[in-house]
């Protein structure tokens, strides 16, 4: 009883706290471990995938989570959508604790997830049937499902493909169908787990544009997981994961200033920032206010070839 009351009180405090802060997702000292059995081993080996991760995501933001393979970023994504439950610490999605079973469905309604492989997340045999899958599961009445399909396909620009079979679409289009399928559930937040990893450059751009549109015009909170830094260059906030921990965090401009540290984590900077960094490292004297490719271009043109000292050795 006392525990229950305490819990209720805690929840109440959190409710007020998060109302002030407008946080939609928050993890507190999140730990996730799993056991693996290797062939010649009797006792299971415990692996810690997430180690004391605390992040908080503001409503309406575009948040990037960067990390190289095996840094725990996909596991984190699954924690944020209650597909996995924490082994330690807590995950709050809109003030719902993901470790409580009764919260799981409401959490998944609030935070949708789009996966890497477009083929493996499309369930329906027609685009419209696939988009309907989520609302069907939620028990939305039939007429409303149709309006939700229309809206979701409109928002992702896939209306023309409504009656097509997913097999006949390109990778980027399939991924947009998957996004529409999540949108039809009317979530407040969507977690994208490397949605462009399997796409060609054109599909990548299409999908990214669609995601930006959702964030900007529909006010959907986006959590974008990737190892391509260019894709989160315009994010509101970035977390860099390494070895299951948050290694760095900050607004993009703050991160570019710590170029050394980012590169040490095995992530390359966006092309222009990388170039700037290398030029400076190589000893070229570039004023500190020059931060992006365009400014660098202007600076180089103004200074002219004669003004730049070249080291030919």
């Amino acid at each position, binding site marked *: 009883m006392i525990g229950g009351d305490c819990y209720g009180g805690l929840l109440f405090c959190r409710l007020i706290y998060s109302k002030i802060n407008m946080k939609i997702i928050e993890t507190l000292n999140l730990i996730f471990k799993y056991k693996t059995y290797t062939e010649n081993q009797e006792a299971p080996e415990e692996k810690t995938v997430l180690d004391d991760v605390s992040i908080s995501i503001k409503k309406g933001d575009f948040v990037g989570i960067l990390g190289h393979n095996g840094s725990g970023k996909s596991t984190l994504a699954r924690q944020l959508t209650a*597909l996995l439950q924490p082994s330690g610490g807590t995950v709050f999605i809109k003030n719902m604790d993901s470790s409580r079973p009764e919260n799981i*469905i409401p959490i998944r309604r609030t935070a949708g997830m789009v996966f890497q492989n477009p083929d*493996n997340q499309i369930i329906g045999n027609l685009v419209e049937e696939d988009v309907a899958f989520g609302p069907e599961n939620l028990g939305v009445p039939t007429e409303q499902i149709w309006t939700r399909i229309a809206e979701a396909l409109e928002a992702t620009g896939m209306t023309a493909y409504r009656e097509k079979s997913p097999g006949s679409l390109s990778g980027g289009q399939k991924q947009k169908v998957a996004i529409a399928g999540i949108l039809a559930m009317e979530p407040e937040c969507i977690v994208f787990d490397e949605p462009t990893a399997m796409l060609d450059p054109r599909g990548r751009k299409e999908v990214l544009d669609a995601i930006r549109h959702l964030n900007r015009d529909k006010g959907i909170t986006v959590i974008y997981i990737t190892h391509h830094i260019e894709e989160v260059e315009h994010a509101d906030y970035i977390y860099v994961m390494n070895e299951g921990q948050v290694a760095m965090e900050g607004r993009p401009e703050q991160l570019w200033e710590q170029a050394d540290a980012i590169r040490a984590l095995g992530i390359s900077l966006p092309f222009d920032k990388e170039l700037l960094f290398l030029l400076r490292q190589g000893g070229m004297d570039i004023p500190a206010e020059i931060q992006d490719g365009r400014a660098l271009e202007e600076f180089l043109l103004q200074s002219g070839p004669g003004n730049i000292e070249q080291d030919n050795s």
Partner: protein
Amino acid sequence: MLREMTLGQYYKADSPLHRLDPRVKLAGTLLFVITLFFPRSVLGLIVATLFLGSVIVMSRVPFSMVIRGVKPLFIIICFSAIVNLLCTPGTVLFEAGPVRITQEGIWISFYLVVRLVYLVMGSSIMTFTTTPNQLTDGLEKSLGFLQRLHIPIHELSMMISIALRFIPILTQELDKIMKAQMSRGADLESGNIFQRARKLLPVLVPLFISAIRRASDLALAMDARCYSGGEGRTKLKPLIYRRNDFIAYGILLLYVVIMIVCGFWIA
């Protein structure tokens, strides 16, 4: 070679038959097949022919396509016809050495051929006019009463429709793996049947691994979209009987009664 393989042979057209509720078509096919095996009578055969003929015309599926469905069964049909023709005792019409053909034999094999051909044609008309999805929906709904006996009908039909969705993906993958193995010098086409089966191993193992991985991804994606079984689920395209469906049931009933009269009373 593999790309051409398609399962389900839906023929897209707009006909009264296409618009019928899948449950009507399932019941119709079942009843049609049962009536085919009523006692032999010429009248019954004529009625069945008329019924099947008008259904084919109504479906707007080209007759040649319906016939094509019978082709794979050609050998089986011929074989059973010949066996019946030669092994039925009765009034001998023709005799040459061990070959003896009787009047009864001719009749029996004639009926057999017609029944088998009609059976295949009747059921292929159903698959021509019903998408695999409608079919699983129809099965789910008409067998829904089994859910109360704790037989997971919803889950089964979900499994079937997912399997149907993944068949083209997996055939493509198989094609890719075969080409990848062939480009590394695997020889998949020579040798006898056992050797060839052994050679398929390096194709099947990666295919299975990838299928399992896909299944686990899909399960996660379904979880993420709040799938929790059939309970409380609504449908995008719920099955609702319309006027035409009741008319079709009426026609079906009439047909079965006529067939019973022809088969049992007159004979």
